[in-house]
Structure formats: C-alpha cells, structure tokens
C-alpha cells in the first residue's frame, strides 16, 4: 500500500491519467458477450483519443443529449420515475435496449432523484414535479436563496464540515433543522459527556431518524440505479460520468449565498469571499476523487453557472471566478482525472482566459458558443464538446438536427479533439432527433486514415 501510494505521488499527471484510463477501459464487469467487450473498448478509446486531442480511429464520439427522455419514451414522466423505482428501472432499460447498440455512452438514471428521500428530509433547495411544480414538469427547479448570511463566511472558513452540519443542512432540509441545536462536535476536552447529552434531545433524535430513513430509502433507489448501470456496462456502454465537481464561486453563489448576495460580496467583502472559495478547493477535489475512485470513470462533470458571459465582467471573472476554479481544474488534473466543465450560458468572452491550461488536460462542454471560434481559440489546448441547440433537438426535424451536427463536425472535428453532443440535454421530444445525432456522426464524422 505504502509503496503503491508513493509511486502514485511520484507520477506525472499524464502517467496518473493513463492509469485511470486503463481502469476505465477494464471495468470489473462480466460483459454480455465478446461483442460487448470489444465495443466497450472501442467506445472508451474513441473518447480517450478525443480528450488527448488525437483523431479517434474511426469517427467523432458522441454523447447523446438525453436527459430525462427515457422516462417519457417509456410512457411515464419524471414524477413517476422519481417515485417508482421499478418504473425508473424499466424506462431506462427500455432506452438502453432501444438506443444501446448505437450509443457511445449511456447516462444512467442517477440524476433522477428519489422523491421519497427528498420528502423525508423536507428538502428546500429544489422543487420537483408534484412538489412545488406541476406533475408533468420534466425537470427540477432550483430554489435560490440567501441560505447563509454574510457574517457566516467565517464559520465556513474556520471549519467547513461544522458549518455544513450545523448551519447549512438545517436550512437546506427541514428534517435536519434540529442540527442547529448541536454543540460544536470537536470538543477538545477529553470526556465527551456533555455533548453526547445533546443527542438526547427529541428533535435531534427525530432528525437522526429522518437521516436513517432517508438512508434506507436511498438504498432502495440505489439498487435500481446500480442495476441499470451494471446492465449498461455489461452491454458494452461506458459511463461518462465519473464524478462531480464545480467552481467554488458557484458553490457559494448557487447554494449558500444566492446570486444577488454573491454579486454584492464581490464589492462588499471580497476578501472573505476569496478566503471561503479557497477553503472549498480541497473539499471539491476530494469529493471528485472519491467519486471517480468509486465509479472507475475519470471524467469529472463540472456544471458552471455564475461565471458565464453577462453575469460578470472579464476582470471580475479573473479576480473572483477563475483563480479557485483553476486550482480545482489543476488539482483534478494532477490526480489523473479529466475535468469536464459544462459551461452553461455563453462562455465566449472567457475563451482567452480558460485556454491557459496544460494541453489536453481539460475537456470543455459548451452550451451557447460559436464553436468555430472555440475550436480556433482552444483547439490546440482542449478537447471541446457541444453544442446542438436544445431548441433544435426539441422542436426541429431529424433533418434539422442532422444538418446542425454536420456543420458542427465540419467546424470542430478536424484534427480530433471534438465530441458531438447537445448544448444541454433534452427531456422530451422526438427520439428520432437523437438517432439523427448518431447518424450524423457516422456519416460526417469519419476520420480518414
């Protein structure tokens, strides 16, 4: 163990990444047949080459922009999938069977949250179909608020887990409100008689019971999700979701302070904001590493929000958003992982800044973006992914979609380093529009050898 760890720490990031790629290429699974095993390797290799800015052996790889669409194609909806795990499993397996032979990766149902767990903990940060939203809504709605007050930055900076347990969780979930009453658990005195007594409080006991109930319910949900993911791997479809991370500015702006407050903080308490973001860097890296170690897939998905064009100036981006975000990117790279920032909104003004990264280390997924410009600016530095408009996917014809893909491939595919996908994912619509994406990759995305 010790020698292996030592060796790991002495490796370059490229060497570490090769180790992780090897693991990704050889998942601990019994493939359903030789074909599946062969296809699996081909698919992963297609992605690996694109990430390394090389031309894949055959064609442009594709991530089908499928969000919650499996639920609808199976005749259900997001609400039924959130509450009925058998239904969840049935819908995603159906999608796997119908699209599986023709996909490069499969996004499992792990992003469909278990409704009963959210109810058990009385989760406040999201609305979902049937709970704050109409039953037939196909996605969640985030509820932004100033959950954390300006003067609470210090608590976050001093002891992040204590802050989460006793300040954030009680506000994020009604069932955990009583955690506010807990004393600081790091009692450095010796005999923990007094703080153990805090757990006799009936409200604290009820909160812990809710936690256990949520755990038991999550286990049931996990069983269904894991089952689908295992079947997908066995069928030869790799995962492209190894773990999650994000930018500290978004962690604070989305979850803790809200957009309005964090924008004010840039002016009123820039030092606290920066200090708090610094504290979140190692936390975000650790979480992503743990996720990737568990999943075996080295791709770290990083949804980005508040740094998009129009939300702040380039100067503010460089002062507040980029420094700690960059630290996380490099921290993940240094662990052999592949950060995949998903830049929601328009990231064109940031291209100049974000290209300052080691070659092939990062994979950028863009929503609204002039992809030919992105290819020009980033092409020699990062693999890029995107960005069929959701509007075309949801309302266009298969021909429209295919044509859009053709143009994207022409702009982005040359020389490698491109993954075809949507600007966002679709939850509802014509399944033939998804098929058109694959058709386009096969027809226009072939690399000539």
């Amino acid at each position, binding site marked *: 163990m010790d020698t292996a760890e030592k060796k790991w720490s002495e490796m370059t990031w490229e060497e570490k990444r090769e180790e992780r790629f090897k693991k990704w290429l050889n998942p601990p699974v019994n493939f359903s047949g030789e074909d599946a095993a062969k296809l699996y390797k081909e698919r992963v290799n297609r992605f690996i080459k694109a990430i390394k800015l090389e031309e894949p052996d055959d064609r442009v790889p594709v991530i089908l922009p499928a969000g919650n669409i499996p639920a609808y194609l199976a005749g259900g909806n997001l609400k039924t999938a959130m509450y009925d795990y058998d239904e969840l499993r049935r819908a995603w397996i159906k999608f796997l069977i119908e699209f599986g032979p023709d996909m490069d990766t499969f996004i499992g149902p792990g992003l469909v949250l278990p409704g009963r767990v959210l109810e058990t903990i009385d989760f406040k*940060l999201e609305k979902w179909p049937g709970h704050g939203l109409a039953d037939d809504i196909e996605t969640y709605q985030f509820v932004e608020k100033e959950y954390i007050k300006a003067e609470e930055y210090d608590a976050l900076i001093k002891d992040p887990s204590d802050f989460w347990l006793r300040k954030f969780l009680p506000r994020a979930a009604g069932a955990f409100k009583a955690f506010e009453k807990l004393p*600081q658990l790091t009692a450095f005195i*010796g005999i923990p008689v*007094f703080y153990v*007594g805090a*757990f006799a409080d009936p409200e604290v006991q009820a909160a*812990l019971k809710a*936690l256990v109930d949520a755990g038991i319910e*999550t286990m049931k949900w996990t069983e269904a999700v894991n089952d689908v993911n295992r079947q997908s791997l066995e069928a030869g479809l790799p995962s492209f979701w190894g773990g999650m*991370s994000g930018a500290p500015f978004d962690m604070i702006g989305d979850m803790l302070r809200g957009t309005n407050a964090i924008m004010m903080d840039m002016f009123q308490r820039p030092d606290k904001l920066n200090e708090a973001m610094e504290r979140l860097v190692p936390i975000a890296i650790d979480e992503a590493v743990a996720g990737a170690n568990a999943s075996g897939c080295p791709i770290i998905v990083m949804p980005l929000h508040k740094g998009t064009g129009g939300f702040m100036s380039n100067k503010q981006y460089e002062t507040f958003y980029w420094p700690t975000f960059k630290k996380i990117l490099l921290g993940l790279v240094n662990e052999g992982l592949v950060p995949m920032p998903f830049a929601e909104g328009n990231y064109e003004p940031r291209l100049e800044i974000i290209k300052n990264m080691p070659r092939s280390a990062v994979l950028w997924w863009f929503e609204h973006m002039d992809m030919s410009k992105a290819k020009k600016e980033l092409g020699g530095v990062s693999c890029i992914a995107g960005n069929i408009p959701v509007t075309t996917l949801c309302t266009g014809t298969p021909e429209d979609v295919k044509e859009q893909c053709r143009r994207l491939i022409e702009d982005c595919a040359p020389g490698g380093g491109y993954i075809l996908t949507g600007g966002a994912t679709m939850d509802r619509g014509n399944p033939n529009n998804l098929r058109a994406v694959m058709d386009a990759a096969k027809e226009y995305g072939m690399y000539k050898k």
Partner: protein
Amino acid sequence: MNVEKKWSEMTWEEKRREKFNKWLTVPDIKFVSPEAEKLYMERVTRFARAFLLEKPDRVPCILPVSNFAAYYGSSDLRTVMYDYDELKRTWRKFLHEFGDSDMFFGPGMVPSGKMLEAVDYKLYKWPGHGISGDTTSYQCVEGEYMKANEYDALIKDPSNFWLRTYLPRVFGAFEALRNIPPFTTIEEIAIMSFVAYGRPDVRAALEALLEAGKESVKWMMAVMEVSQEATRMGFPAIMGGLSKAPFDTLGDTLRGTQGVMMDMFQRPEKLHQAMEKIASLTIDSTLASIGDSGVPLIMMPLHKGADGFMSTKQYETFYWPTFKKVIMAFVNEGIMPVLFAEGSYNTRLDIISELPRGSVTWWFDQTDMAKAKKILGDKACLVGNVPTSLLMTGTPQEVKEHCRNLIEICAPGGGYILSGGANIDKGDPDNLRAMMEAVKEYGVY
C-alpha cells in the same frame, strides 16, 4: 443589539467587572434559609476579591477533593459511576456532614460509567473497566489516535477529521462512522451520501449515540440536583467551564506525548498550524459551553508544559503562544482562566508573568510558592498547594501547620486561595477540616 455593541466596545476589565458583578448578584434561587443566602454572598465575595488580587475578609479555601465524597459515604468510584442514586446519596452526605467550607464541588467530574460503556470510550480506563474495581480514579489511555500524516486533514476541515476519522478510533461504538461521506459537498444534494445512513453498522452507531445521550441526560439530572442543593445551602460553585491548552489537546488525546514530542522536531510547522486551528475551536467551544452558568471562571488543567517535559525554549516556541491566545480570548470576554499547572512550573514563572495584571489565576501543584509569590504575586491570584501526600498520610496538625506556612508566604497583600496541590479521593476528613481551621485562624486580613 445596543447592548451587544456596547459589549464589543468595552475593555476586558470592564467586561470582567460586569461578569463578576453578575456572579456577585444574589442568584435567582430559593435558599434554604436567610443564613444560607448571607453565607453564599460572603463566600462568593471572598473568592471574587481573591481572584481579583484584592484582600477579602480572610483567605478563601478550595477543598482539594475529587472523588472523596464517594469514599466518605462508604461507597467507591466504581459504584457511583454506575449508580446515580448512590452518587447523589454520597455527595449529599458529604455536603450535609462536612461542616463549614467556602465552596462545594458537585459530582460533575464523575463520568457516567453506563454512558462510557454505551459509546465504548477508549481514552479512559475506569474501575471495573480496564483497572481493578477498587481504584479511586480513572486512567487516561494515551495513544497515537491521530497519525502524523493526518495533520493536514485536521487543519483543513477539523470537524470532518473529527467525525469520520477520530471518533471511530476513540469510540468503539462509532467505528462505523468511518463509512459516512463528508458533509461538505459541491452538489446541492449529494443523494448518494444518504446510502451510508441506511447501513446497519452506521444505524447501530447512531442508536448507540442516542442511547448514550439518554443515559447522559439521566446522569446530568443527578449531578444538577446535587449542585443546586449545594447552592441553595449557600455553597457557591467555582467552575464555570473547562478548557485546555492546544499543545495538551494534541499531546493528550490526539498524538500522544511521544508523538507530539517528536513532532516538535520533525514537523514543527504542522504542529503550529494544528495548534492555531485547535486554539480557535477551543475558544469557540469553551465560550459556548459556559453560556449561562454565571460563574466567570474557566478551569484549565495543564499537562505537557510542566518543568522537565520540555525546555524553556520549547515551551516558549510551542506551548506558550497558542496557550496564551486561548487564555487571552477568555480574558477578553471578561472571564478569568484558572490555570491549573500540574507538576511544577518553576522554570515557567518568568514567561507566564507577561500576562496582564489580574487577568488570570494560577493554581500550582508542586511549584515553589515562595518563588511564585515573588514573581507572580502582584500579577495573578495564586492557588495551592498542600501536598497530596501530606493530605493523605499526615495528621490534621501537620496539615494545619503546612497551611499556616503557605498562608504566611502567599497571603500578604491578598490574591491568594488556599488549596491542595492536587485533589484527594480518600483519607481523613479532619485533614480537610484542618485546612478550614487554618484559613480562619491564620488567614484573616
């Protein structure tokens, strides 16, 4: 809001005057008699003056007793740790039979054996649990509960380290908590995190925590019943809270003596960073714990900085800076730290004399009191230090004579409290009464 603002603008002396004035106000309780109320006020006033380097009517005395009441009541530590009725009976017997004294120690330092068993606490052995049933004290079990390469984890996210690494090691019942994921997450809801709480072993750990919590409340009720009775009878409490020096926290309960001594040489920077972090958390948790006790005193038992444990230079480099930071944080809140220096502190007297005049009290175990009075006498109230050996094996006359000697050395000018160098668990109650006689006979100003 107005009051708070005012508080933050006050000097530490002003804050302390407020805190002591509150302590010196007749508490809102029903005394057993007008005489008890009068005595209570006399006693609190006597202590307050001594702590503040003033002359009281006479030298006050802190009886050096810890588990003494258990044996006085023909019981033993093991019994009263498990049987709260016995705990109450013995402490009340001592309270009612001992006679005049200046204060009373409730049974709060006798931990519940049932609670310790419920959590399978590894840091202590106690009678019938690792040491023989008739032992009069518990025994701390030092170990390397935190490894040298875990300093960063402690510094980066203390509660994360505490809950997921440290607690599973020092509480057998919480071993499964090593399986819970961090609370911090970049996702608005890390749904997979909940899975851990469905695990049978984690559920069992939480059950154990709840059981221990309930047990601890039963124990606390018993302790409070006795302490409140003592107050109603006119005997004040003189301990508002408990705290520690960061170096001791690391040395006692995290790295162990050997580990922390090596760390001074092998990773001094990490040690410093960790002590800074622990200092800040210690300040928070101590101030929160004394919330409304009304007693403006915090007891700090000191261990690894004693003479012989480290050089003066090491004391100045490693022990003193964060210790001082913790002390001054309490002082700045108007609270007086009572620093109980176990072992001897003869070589530290010059260093510790730098604290502001009247800000702290030093309680010495084996320190030379004449030297202490000379160096610290006009700076800090002194407490001590009848030797435990004399209290346990000497005659009442010998004890009284020793007290006379101490009073002659330390009492002049005020700022002195007679007590033992450490507390005794067993022995002749007349030796304790001899101390009370001595202060009345020789300690009148």
